[in-house]
């Protein structure tokens, strides 16, 4: 199978996402007073309503309506003042009423959008933007200095209830195939769920990944969900089809499920694009079907073939009156909107002089941006000087640590914002080298000590004194006449060798900047 970059030369992928988020921060279910709790004993949070017992009626959770309106306002949607619930009829044991209460043609939130800043390696998946100068636009995309911004439409965000959870017994890995029987846990049944549907505006797996990531940041910022992709409180399905570069029609799409991490979302879509290209290039046909991404086998497999569109017999839910929201109520919700990630990034650029890239990556996690802000408060009049190194520490070292260790909790970590400021100041004032800085970073976390204490203990002072360094540089040059000769013949890469030798002599404490300067001066003389 061809690689994604190769496939995208000939084919354009058309991707739309459907993203479900459980409103886990609410106390109770969508239509009854049962408690929302993950991991409770099966069927302990149930009542006649969420069990769909005969005669039970739904009563809407007003806090859930507020949550979805917050989500809509945070994603630039129009809030529909008049909307209704509908019944989506299908029979399956995880849905006790055998219909799901959802919304019809008019959802609470309609016609929104998010702008995605795509840069770095991820921007290279868009091969059709070559030659576009910063500021120039093509379709929904505007080029920037180091990538582009994609304007992605949101069709709607609607409210619905989640189903219960089925556990299949006796089959392989809990799958239904080969199972002898199934169990149902209705604790999750009736959990308020919002589903966001994008326009088919996404063109690369990277854009899809960034959309999901940005939406997750927004939902976390407005506090409507814990957005755990692993526990399934935020889930993403992708619709993908291909068309030849230059054509405008739409190909047959497949629906992709089980992309329960950002990596799986990217890799699943990338695989499916390559698979479809191969089928089409071999003269085959794409069938409208639901496919399952298997991350361990790194391929997608057919779950269900849709020969005809499902007929859910949607009709207005007669047990729930139409919802009429007033302008005052909507304004009240708007007033509760916190600072959103984009606004925060803009503030960081303006107040702390961070680059757009640094600011954007800093706000990816609330933990890192909170950490950064506390550090800036403590830095006082040094804030503008230390902003960039502190941001780098947060984006690179801290984020790497968080990614490597799931249990790492920045808020409870020995590396407090105060210690971080101390550390970046040591580096900024050339007291220690940035390499030593990495060692101190790890030691602070492991030993729970102040950076200055670690520096003292380990004798890790950086030597920036020119005369001391000059002596070492002279000695190294004198000891390596062959290398000096080759350098002078034009092999300038050998500068690295000389720096290494100087560092070795100085037990890693020499200021690399000064060493470089002095070496260059003397070798080029």
């Amino acid at each position, binding site marked *: 199978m061809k690689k994604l970059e190769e496939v995208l030369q000939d084919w354009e992928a058309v991707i739309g996402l459907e993203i479900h988020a459980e409103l886990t921060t609410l106390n109770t279910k969508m239509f009854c007073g049962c408690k929302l709790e993950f991991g409770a004993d099966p069927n302990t949070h149930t009542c006649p309503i969420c069990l769909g*017992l005969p005669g*039970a*009626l739904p009563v809407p959770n007003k806090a859930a309506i507020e949550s979805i309106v917050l989500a809509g306002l945070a994603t630039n949607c129009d809030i529909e003042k008049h909307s209704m619930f509908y019944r989506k*009829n299908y029979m399956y044991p995880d849905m006790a*009423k055998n219909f799901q209460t959802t919304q019809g043609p008019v959802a609470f939130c309609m016609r929104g959008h998010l702008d995605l800043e795509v840069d770095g390696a991820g921007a290279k998946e868009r091969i059709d933007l070559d030659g576009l100068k910063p500021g120039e636009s093509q379709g929904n995309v505007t080029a920037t200095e180091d990538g582009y911004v994609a304007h992605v439409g949101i069709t709607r965000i609607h409210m619905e209830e989640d189903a219960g959870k089925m556990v299949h017994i006796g089959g392989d890995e809990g799958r239904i195939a080969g199972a002898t029987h199934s169990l149902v846990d209705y604790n999750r049944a009736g959990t308020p769920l919002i589903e966001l549907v994008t326009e088919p505006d996404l063109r690369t797996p990277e854009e899809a990944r960034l959309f999901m990531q940005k939406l997750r940041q927004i939902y976390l910022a407005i506090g409507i969900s814990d957005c755990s992709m692993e526990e399934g409180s935020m889930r993403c399905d992708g619709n993908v089809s291909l068309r030849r570069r230059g054509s405008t029609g739409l190909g047959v799409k497949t629906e992709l499920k089980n992309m329960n991490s950002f990596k799986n979302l990217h890799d699943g879509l990338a695989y499916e694009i390559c698979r479809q290209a191969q089928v089409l290039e071999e003269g085959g046909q794409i069938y409208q079907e639901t496919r399952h991404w298997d991350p361990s086998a790194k391929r997608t497999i057919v779950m269900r073939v849709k020969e005809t569109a499902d007929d859910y017999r949607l009709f207005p839910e*007669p*047990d729930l009156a139409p919802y009429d929201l007033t302008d005052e109520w909507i304004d009240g919700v708007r007033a509760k909107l916190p600072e959103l990630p984009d606004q925060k990034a803009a503030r960081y650029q303006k107040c702390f002089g961070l680059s757009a890239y640094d600011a954007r990556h800093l706000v990816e996690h609330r933990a890192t941006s909170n950490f950064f802000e506390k550090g800036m408060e403590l830095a006082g009049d040094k804030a503008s000087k230390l902003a960039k190194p502190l941001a780098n520490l947060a984006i690179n070292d801290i984020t790497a640590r968080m990614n490597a260790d799931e249990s790492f909790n920045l808020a409870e970590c020995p590396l407090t914002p105060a210690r971080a400021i101390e550390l970046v100041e040591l580096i900024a004032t050339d007291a220690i080298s940035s390499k030593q800085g990495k060692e101190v970073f790890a030691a602070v976390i492991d030993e729970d000590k102040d950076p200055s204490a670690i520096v003292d203990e380990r004798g890790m002072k950086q030597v920036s004194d020119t005369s001391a360094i000059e002596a070492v540089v002279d000695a190294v040059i004198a000891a390596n006449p062959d290398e000096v000769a080759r350098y002078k013949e034009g092999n300038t890469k050998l500068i690295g060798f000389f720096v290494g030798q100087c560092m070795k002599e100085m037990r890693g404490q020499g200021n690399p900047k000064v060493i470089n300067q002095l070496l260059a001066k003397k070798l080029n003389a």
Partner: protein
Amino acid sequence: MAYNANMNVADIRAGLLAGDFTAREVAEASFKRIEELDGEVHAFLELTKDAAFEQAAKIDEALANGTFDEMGPLAGVPVAFKDNMNYEGTHTTCSSLMLENYVSPYTATCVAKTIEAGGIPLGKLNMDEFAFGSSTETSAFGPTKNPWDLERVPGGSSGGSAASVAAGLACVTLGSDTGGSIRQPAAFCGIVGVKPTYGMVSRYGVVAFGSSLDQVGPFARSVRDAAAAMDAICGHDPMDCTSQYVKADFRAACEQGVEGMRIGVVPGFMNAPGLTDEVKARVSEATEALREAGAEIVEVELPHADAAISAYYVLGPCEAFSNLARFDSVRYGYCAEGHKDLGSQYEASRAAGFGMEAKRRIMLGSYLLSSGVYEKYYYPAQQVRTLITQDYQAAYEKCDVILAPTSPRTAFKFGEIGDPVEMHLSDIFTVSINIAGNGGMSVPCGLGSDTGLPVGVQLIAPQFKDENMFRAAAALEAVYGAAPIAPDFAAGKAGE
């Protein structure tokens, strides 16, 4: 005077207060009558003796403590409930094999309110399966008979609720009305039956047929008894978000008279092709009786009323299809054994668990909601609904209550109407009220001159002005008297 089955709510209250009898004696006498007479009528599906005697003990204690006055408007009154109403610990079968063994884990609000108001719960009452029918013949547990003529149907779907009151086996019962299921059996059994405005009474705990049409209401032999029951059950329920905050005093409305009240008569109804002469004659007399009592009679038009049956047989089955989907054999209810996969278990269980009329409505609803069909039926039916609602609103600018026949004819014989469409047409005067959401009640207005069977006249109120129809109903009762127990079941028959 000792308790007897003729007594109305006020008589029972007075008797208890005077110490003529105890609540326990009321309960004992009631069960004695049921045990001796219900074999002929088959109104009851289950008796709730433990609950009845427990309630009677509470009432007798209140009498002894002098706190009886604090009890509600139905204190000591023998009551019973249609079997689509959940009452914790009882079977709630909806007269279907599907729910033959289903025991309610909770209690419907209307049942709870009736018992809170002091009613002595006697049991659960037969009905058409899932309330689909107009004769109680579709009950999986055998039909209920009309106490006026045991060869005739009591009407339906709340046939057990009507027949039990007509036979003097209960004083007040609750039924539900989706297209006429309270008013038509009340007319057939010669008693009072009330379908309140949609939203007056909570539907929580009442097994749904057509959620946008269903409404709970009382049966009684007198208008004032029905008013007492309405005072007990109406009002907002946080568990039913379609129920409304209403302030009403139905017992007070009964004393207001009809002086100056405008009664609307619909020529289209009075000249309907299926309306029998005997019913037309009695309804016309009732109109005159109200005029003599001081009301003004005006003609009003309901131009779209003819379309009500068509809209009803679209909207009702659509909602029923969806409401009945939960009866799938998985969690409760009838389950056909021996099926290895889910699909065949669903099919076999639903094929055996549901009767013909239920299947007909489910299939109809499933078809009407399917894509491509929905636009042709469901949507226009909703538009018709709007037109009919507007018709009523316009009519009520000219009148305070509308008077119409309840049913085009008196009670028919078992098996007499085999064609389901003809059966559906017996709802012709009642369904438009459910479509528009208004209140309606049937009040007895004498016996038909041809059949000698009870005739009912229907009073239809503007939305949430249900007190209007009680004013007119009380005025009619002043002329016709309260309904008697059906002659063959007169008090004393059970050896009282």
